């Protein structure tokens, strides 16, 4: 592609400069530049290949350009019409994941739950019980416990919801004793 432009290289009304700092020989350079970008870093080449642009794989910082505070506010909401876990707003490495590991006493395989779509212990417990196929009659014999940032194991409903969510690291369903 040839640029049919008159490249006037005089700087607009500049007192200090009568000629540019670097002469711009663009006609010759443009085709050369296409092939040889002149970067020392290979990484820049890769960045510009379309395949590497999938946001959800690479997690580009700051893209798409949605403000951080907007993302946060939207993330912590009940998604009425979306299925839980799958379509949470919090993908991409730019945001903190709100997925938390859930284990059940006696069950080898752990599950994951999206904490940001819950706003009460009730819905959380119900969801977890359902996840582990615990029938309603049996639910009373289980207790939901959690490990906080300090590593201590506590009973979930003993603290206010907000405190719980803030310090939550992972969850465990245990059989209540006595």
């Amino acid at each position: 592609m040839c640029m049919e432009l008159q490249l006037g290289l005089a700087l607009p009304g500049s007192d200090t400069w009568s000629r540019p700092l670097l002469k711009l020989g663009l006609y010759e350079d443009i085709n050369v530049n296409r092939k040889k970008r002149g970067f020392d870093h290979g990484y820049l080449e890769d960045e510009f290949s379309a395949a590497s642009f999938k946001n959800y794989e690479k997690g580009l910082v700051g893209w798409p350009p949605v403000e951080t505070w907007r993302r946060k506010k939207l993330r912590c909401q009940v998604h009425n019409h979306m299925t839980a876990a799958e379509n949470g707003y919090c993908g991409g490495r730019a945001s903190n994941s709100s997925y938390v590991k859930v284990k059940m006493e006696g069950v080898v395989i752990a599950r994951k739950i999206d904490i940001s779509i819950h706003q009460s212990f009730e819905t959380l417990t119900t969801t977890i019980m359902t996840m582990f196929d615990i029938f309603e009659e049996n639910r009373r014999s289980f207790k939901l416990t959690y490990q906080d940032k300090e590593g201590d194991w506590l009973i979930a409903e003993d603290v206010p919801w907000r405190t719980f969510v803030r310090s939550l690291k992972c969850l465990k369903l245990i059989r209540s004793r006595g």
Partner: protein
Amino acid sequence: MLKKMAFSFPDEVLEHVFSFIQSDKDRNAVSMVCKSWYEIERWCRRKVFVGNCYAVSPRMVIRRFPEFRSIELKGKPHFADFNLVPDGWGGYVFPWIAEMAGAYPWLEEIRLKRMVVTDESLELIAKSFKNFKVLVLSSCEGFSTDGLAAIAASCKNLKELDLRDCEVDDLSAHWLSHFPETYTSLVSLNISCLGSDEASFSALERLVRRCTNLKTLRLNRAVPLDKIANILRHAPQLVEFGTGTYTADVRPDVYSDLAGVFSSCKELKSLSGFWDVIPDYLPAIYPVCSKLTSLNLSYATIQSPDLIKLVSHCPNLQRLLVLDYIEDSGLEVLASSCKDLQELRVFPSDPFGAEPNVSLTEQGLVAVSLGCPKLQSVLYFCRRMSNEALVTIARSRPNFTRFRLCIIEPKTADYLTLEPLDVGFGAIVQYCKDLRRLSLSGLLTDRVFEYIGTYAKKLEMLSVAFAGDSDLGLHHVLSGCESLRKLEIRDCPFGDKALLANAAKLETMRSLWMSSCAVSFAACKLLGQKMPRLNVEVIDERGPPDSRPENCPVDKLYIYRSIAGPRFDMPPFVWTMDEDSGLRLS
């Protein structure tokens, strides 16, 4: 004889004439007419605007304008909103407050954007300015509710406290109780960004009840739906209202309470909030919809049918912020119902998803552009676009002043022809002669920049990402866009050549941001050495730029004009290139 008359105007007359001139630009023009006008103007300027807090020092401002009452300051570059500016970069307001505290006990208004505000700063404001009236903090951070408590307790004449999208350390909701019982002058309160902890409802209610001049109230998410009725009952004079959480068990008494109280708000023109909204409670606001001019539903995760119903009730809407749940079908209804629409922002509900989760395409934007004759400002996130659509949009809506399009996947081509979107954006700049702000996206070559440089003569702000082929692109913009003030670029193959060839242009602009581009450390040094009135700052978290070869590209580059010289409050990952050694460590 005529000459004598011109110089014999008493100062007071000129001052009186100047008092009708409010705009910054005009005031600046007035001050450049002659020395005596400069002198008179500087003594009577009451509002100062500093677009870049590092372009000038507080002392310089105070020296030139000895009697201002209102100041507006902006700090971090715009891309800080998207996490591209590392924490600790700068933008501290404290030095400004400290200088003004000494010089201006009569300061009344402070407006800050993207600045770091500490509790210490807030306490100093509360202590120093006896007639303080307006505090607007937009996208600021660094303070807690303790600082707010200080403001509440001391500023007896406070009229406006507006915390827009700030990051606030929510230590206690009881800061609201620090407004004395005798305090009644509040006109505008925006606490929508505060945390979701239990708010002090009774303090809030009492405050609203006694501030009978309250016109704007934007609540935070912690205020539950059933409390809103109590609050609104005491403030039927509100013009702008932001709800808290808009969800509750569906109960007829709560609903009728709410609907009743909204009906009594005859002045309401603007609504926002709507977190966690459930559709059942939406009809409660129908009584006010016909008067609404501004509606912010950008947090409302409801489906298109409910959005359509709502929007159809608002024929006088001028400004709409909404999620892409509105879909093309909803935008078509918007286009036919809201003929006064001036500004539309459509945000993505699932920006990181691989596949589209809603049926929102370029068609929605086309519909609104064709149907809304007053539309002039658009921010639109979508997943596909065509040149054909852009040309249609440009032709039908030449009155655009702000056009920001974000096609979510970088380098997405025209979905019909698989070509770049150069021609489409070219049409936008060609037809929209008053375009002041433009954001590009999609697959774009140097050609689009040729169009921009040729046609976008009024363009003041341009945002570019993943576009262009070579330095020619950047050269077109820097050499062609006469009104350009702010340019921000990320992930584009622009390097040294265009930057150095257009160095002088940078002094005519407020700032240039370039990240993940191809500008070498050597070029940064050269620019810093040769252009003393530019601050050339290299931001690189990998380590000192001189630990790598000179021709290595820098990670991020922020260049801005300044008469204050290089700053000294930089964190370890920011280096200023200046005339001394080409490298200055903080």
